């Protein structure tokens, strides 16, 4: 008697990816156009051509430079020039805050640090958030549930920069005051191992320089935990809600009626279904962190791309901001695509 449900559109996986890529391209184009119009259309601090001229240049030379780069053209033409430059590697120069080095060089020097911080942040979030969510679902409305609910909500309501400082205050300042082994409060050791992947810890491991790896790891603990504490609460809530939802389903009653132990019912039957939404969330978290947890990098002066973007914001350096927003948009949108595709592999019901 079950009512016939009309089949959704049945596509093969590659058709779906092509479709999403086209949409992705459209969104990217729109974001960069919007950012370009906002940043270049309205003067913000340093003029876009500032890094190209030196103080000794005469006004005519300055005009020639401006015309050469097309800064005087109508905004839309500038946009296409800019896009052309981006794709053949010339991301423009940065302002005085980064000694005028080319933007892509500045970007790629610091990007690995942000990636590393995001990886550790996400690992911590998942490692604490998921078990917290599971416990509070299994022990629903008993003490562990209330406790994990408070931790989750506290993390979710903590101002990120404030929490960073509190960690520094306690684990650096007071620990050293009381003579306890303290964690470094800010910064990161400079890169002394040969650059292979660009990620300090992995390169250190590859180069076998364990001292450097340990030092880097110590510097990472506080910023990573500060990042994850805020998001692990949200993840725990999602895991708890979806696990509770799954435990109410009929097939769980069926599993129990087969005489399976509660542990098997939860880990074999319930968990696989319940963790699907957590995968989506983790993907989005990682992308957001990749965009440079600006505030945390600023608080811990962690040399990631977020910190550079912040300094660019303070100086009003439009060139670097343009590049940064463009890359940030690429990262977010592609992360969403990866997560959606991952969805199909986990949940057999979804045939794209």
């Amino acid at each position, binding site marked *: 008697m079950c009512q016939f449900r009309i089949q959704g559109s049945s596509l093969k996986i590659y058709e779906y990816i092509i479709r999403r890529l086209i949409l992705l391209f459209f969104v990217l184009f729109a974001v960069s156009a919007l*950012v370009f119009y906002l940043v270049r259309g309205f003067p913000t601090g340093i003029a876009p051509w500032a890094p190209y001229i030196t103080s000794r240049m005469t006004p005519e030379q300055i005009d020639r430079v401006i015309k050469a780069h097309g800064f005087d053209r109508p905004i839309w033409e500038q946009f296409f020039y800019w896009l052309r430059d981006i794709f053949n590697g010339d991301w423009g120069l940065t302002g005085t805050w980064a000694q005028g080095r080319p933007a892509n060089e500045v970007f790629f020097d610091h990007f690995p640090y942000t990636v590393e911080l995001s990886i550790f942040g996400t690992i911590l979030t998942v490692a604490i958030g998921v078990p917290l969510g599971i416990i509070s679902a299994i022990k629903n409305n008993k003490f562990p549930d209330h406790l994990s609910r408070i931790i989750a*909500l506290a993390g979710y309501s903590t101002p990120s920069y404030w929490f960073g400082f509190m960690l520094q205050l306690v684990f650096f300042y007071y620990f050293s005051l009381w003579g306890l082994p303290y964690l470094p409060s800010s910064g990161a050791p400079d890169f002394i191992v040969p650059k292979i992947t660009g990620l300090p810890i992995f390169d250190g491991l590859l180069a076998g320089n364990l001292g450097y790896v340990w030092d880097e790891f110590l510097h990472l603990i506080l910023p990573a935990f500060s990042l994850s504490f805020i998001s692990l609460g949200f993840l725990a809530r999602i895991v708890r809600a979806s696990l509770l939802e799954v435990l109410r389903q009929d097939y769980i009653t069926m599993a129990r009626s087969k005489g399976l132990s509660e542990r098997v019912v939860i880990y074999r039957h319930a968990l696989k279904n319940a963790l699907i939404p957590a995968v989506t969330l983790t993907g989005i978290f990682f992308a957001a962190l990749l965009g440079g947890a600006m*505030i945390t990098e600023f608080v811990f002066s962690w040399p990631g791309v977020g910190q550079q973007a912040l300094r660019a914001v303070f100086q009003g350096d439009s060139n670097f901001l343009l590049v940064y927003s463009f890359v940030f948009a690429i990262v977010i949108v592609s992360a969403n695509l990866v997560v959606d595709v991952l969805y199909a592999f986990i949940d057999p019901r979804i045939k794209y």
Partner: protein
Amino acid sequence: MQSREEKVRKGEWEARIADLKYTLHLFRKNPLVMIGTIITLFFVALALLSNIIVDPNLAYASGYEGGMYRFDRKYMWSAGHIINWGPGISIYSGPEFFYLGTDGWGRDLLAMIILSIPVDLYNAVVIVSIAAVFGTLIGAIAGYVGGIFDEAILRITDIFFAFPGLVLALVFAAMFGRTMETLQLAIVLVWWPPYVRLIRGQILSEKEKPYVEALRALGASHIRILFRHVLLNSIFPILVQITMDLGGVILTFSALMFLGFSPSPSMPELGNLAADGYGHIFDAPWVMIFPGLVMLVISLAFNLVGDGLRDVLDPRLRR
């Protein structure tokens, strides 16, 4: 007819009150929600009475001459324990004892916090209400109408999701000057897309229900069906999101303030007060700790209420 009408009409009110009583019962059952509600009410009351409890022009007391950000400030914990930072600043003549010490300008930190609560709550309410109303309307129409309009709205929200909020704030601050309105506008622009997605999902499932088809069979217009029936039946998750977002917006707003986007460095706003303590975290930690703590408690209260609201309003759990 009329008296029976009253007696019968009363029936309707009793029905609604009985429903309310059941909701309150569920509310009381959850201890965390009660705590959240009490704290929220306390802060709202504090915000309304702040100008009475504390003399507002304290914010512009002696430590602040002519709006210049002078570095030779003084940090005082309490009369007995004074840390002097920076040369030759005249002792602030006010009452010797400050409960929470003073901020960078020598003003009483506790007074400043009390003055800043209405500022933050006002911002939160303004931003969330605009974002929620705008997002819900657009999302509801997109979900109900479907087709190309729905697809277009989704793509637009994708754009805003991929947009770095901070850049927006900078550009607006540069364009229109660093005023509260530009900050509020920047946050609203980044805050409305989640509402579109939330309400759209609800509307898509609600409009499939038979009572909607019955209304169409009766010949009711689409506008009537959407706004008098479908939207009102799927509005509950939006209320939950609004409550939790009030806390979230306070954090975001104060983060922007912390990064220096505030109209004036000495404006009583929790983020601003905390920013003041940035350079002296180790020698004058209280300037950073207490404003941050207050922010944490306010948004935690809102989140507790929101979380409890979700369990109470979840139709499955109600009956």
